């Protein structure tokens, strides 16, 4: 404990494993999250993201390997660790019959905070998530996006140093997602360390300084969104849509085009640094698509390159 607090990683995991009976949910991962960072676990459903989050949140015991949160062991210091983190679970766990404000106050009491302090913080936090005008209304009738914001406000009641968010925007409409991202960005500005899981590429690109791509309990790649794209994909991607059933046939004509050609059920992707040039070549080879699109590479392409599968299968 002689080190300055800032030099201790917020989360560090070495060869971390979680098994449920025969099933291995997390299969020996190494992760280090630094203070103030926004760190993401990206992967499809069942990749082991939520199991990892529950171990970090000190509610699920580690099967083997080493895990330290703020330099402490969850097995012996679970309570102390949990008192310093905030958790936004995958599904809202709010008391629907109670008011927004009461939900926050009751939650604050679990941290043994005095009632008066809970009330003060609840008012501040509801302001922060732009729900002050709903403080006394019941949770039940609120929209999905509002409930999510209540959950985030509630997770902040203990003024956490680390905020864990398990798929924070799943099921929200685009506008609600942007409101949420904006609030999370502000938290990061205040120095709160964010660790989140997502299967949305745009979310990871928007929020994360650094991320790991998880697949089947393992880490497939690690880096900043930009690094990962540079390392595992081309600068641009040409998307081609053919008449249904024609993809395989047309793809044969595209052999050797760009770095790589990927055939998906609904479209063919050509990975090339210059998408427009690739499209001209497609025309030259007489493989005219119904429609085409040139775009920049995204994390979705990284995932596809690493696992051979799309994320939302």
């Amino acid at each position, binding site marked *: 404990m002689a080190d300055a607090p800032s030099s201790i990683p917020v989360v560090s995991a070495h060869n971390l494993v979680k098994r449920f009976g025969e099933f291995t949910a997390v299969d020996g991962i190494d992760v280090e999250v630094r203070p103030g960072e926004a760190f993401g676990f990206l992967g499809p459903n069942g990749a082991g993201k939520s199991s990892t989050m529950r171990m970090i949140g000190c509610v699920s015991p580690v099967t083997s390997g080493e895990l330290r949160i703020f330099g402490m062991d969850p097995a012996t210091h*679970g*309570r102390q660790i949990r008192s310093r983190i905030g958790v936004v679970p995958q599904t809202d766990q709010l008391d629907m019959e109670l008011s927004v404000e009461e939900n926050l106050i009751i939650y604050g009491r679990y941290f043994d905070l005095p009632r008066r302090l809970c009330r003060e913080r609840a008012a501040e936090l509801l302001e922060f998530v732009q729900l002050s005008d709903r403080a006394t209304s019941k949770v039940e009738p609120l929209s999905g996006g509002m409930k999510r914001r209540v959950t985030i406000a509630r997770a902040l009641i203990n003024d956490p140093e680390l905020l864990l968010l398990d798929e924070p925007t799943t099921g929200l409409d685009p506008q609600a997602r942007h409101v949420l991202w904006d609030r999370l960005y502000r938290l990061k500005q205040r120095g709160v360390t964010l660790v989140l899981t997502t299967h949305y590429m745009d979310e990871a690109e928007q929020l994360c300084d650094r991320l790991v791509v998880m697949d089947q309990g393992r880490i497939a790649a690690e880096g900043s969104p930009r690094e990962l794209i540079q390392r595992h994909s081309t600068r641009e991607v040409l998307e081609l849509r053919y008449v249904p059933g024609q993809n395989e046939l047309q793809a044969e004509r595209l052999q050797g085009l760009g770095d790589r050609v990927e055939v998906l059920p609904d479209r063919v992707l050509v990975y090339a640094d210059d998408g427009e040039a690739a499209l001209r070549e497609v025309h030259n080879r007489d493989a005219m698509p119904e429609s085409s699109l040139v775009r920049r590479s995204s994390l979705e392409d990284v995932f596809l390159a690493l696992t051979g599968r799309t994320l939302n299968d």
Partner: protein
Amino acid sequence: MTETGIGIAAAAPAVGVRGAIRVWERHWKLHSFYWRSDLMGAVVQPLLYLMGMGLGVGALVDSQGAGLLGGVSYLAFVAPAVIAAAAMNVAAQESVWPLMAGFKWSNAFQAMCATPITAAQVAGGTLLWLTTKVTISTVGVGAVLMLFPATRTVGVLAAIPAGIVTGLAYGLAISAWTATRESDTSFPVILRFFILPMFLFAGVFFPVDQLPDPIPLIVWAVPLWHGVELSRGAVIGGLDPAMAAIHIAILLVWVGIGFLACTQTFTRRLTP
């Protein structure tokens, strides 16, 4: 670190109870919407019951002569037992669907475990909450007993804690079971095929030695029978102190085992 380590170890029991009280606070807050209907259930229901059983059936029984139940009226025989029976019913009801909501439908218990609250404290909070519910109920029945001259005794004050312990014996055992369930299909079975037969055959309405062997022996394993013997003995007298001690001891063993089972099943459920 060592200094805080020692501090934490010393403060652990206190912290444990405080956490359970925080869990109870949430139950209480949610409940504050329903307390009126609860109080009605605790007072009006037993009142109707006793008027029907005691005054209706009682008139028939009492007409056979006072010697039948050792010299007391049927009302005086049944009414004290209702303290224990109501406690059992309330605790059983509270330990199925309402408890399942915390594990499954609102996930409130999972939310608690993301904070410094532990699964054992959630179990502790459940114990405190069951105690609250059962106290409201037994005090309600006790108040009803004070309305009838035959049961208006100081013993009612002793019958109330006996009823509370009886309720906890059921509530904790059922809560431990509920914590292991993924669906609510077993709950009606528990209430209809376990709780209801005990209500009918564990000595509330007639002495168990009326029943054929080996039922008078089997009732030793039934918490309600011990609760009934205690509450009846306290109100109308005739309880042997040694037997009372045995009844209390058996009920406390049920409560102890039930609470240990709760801490186990709650922990397995909430921290997988």
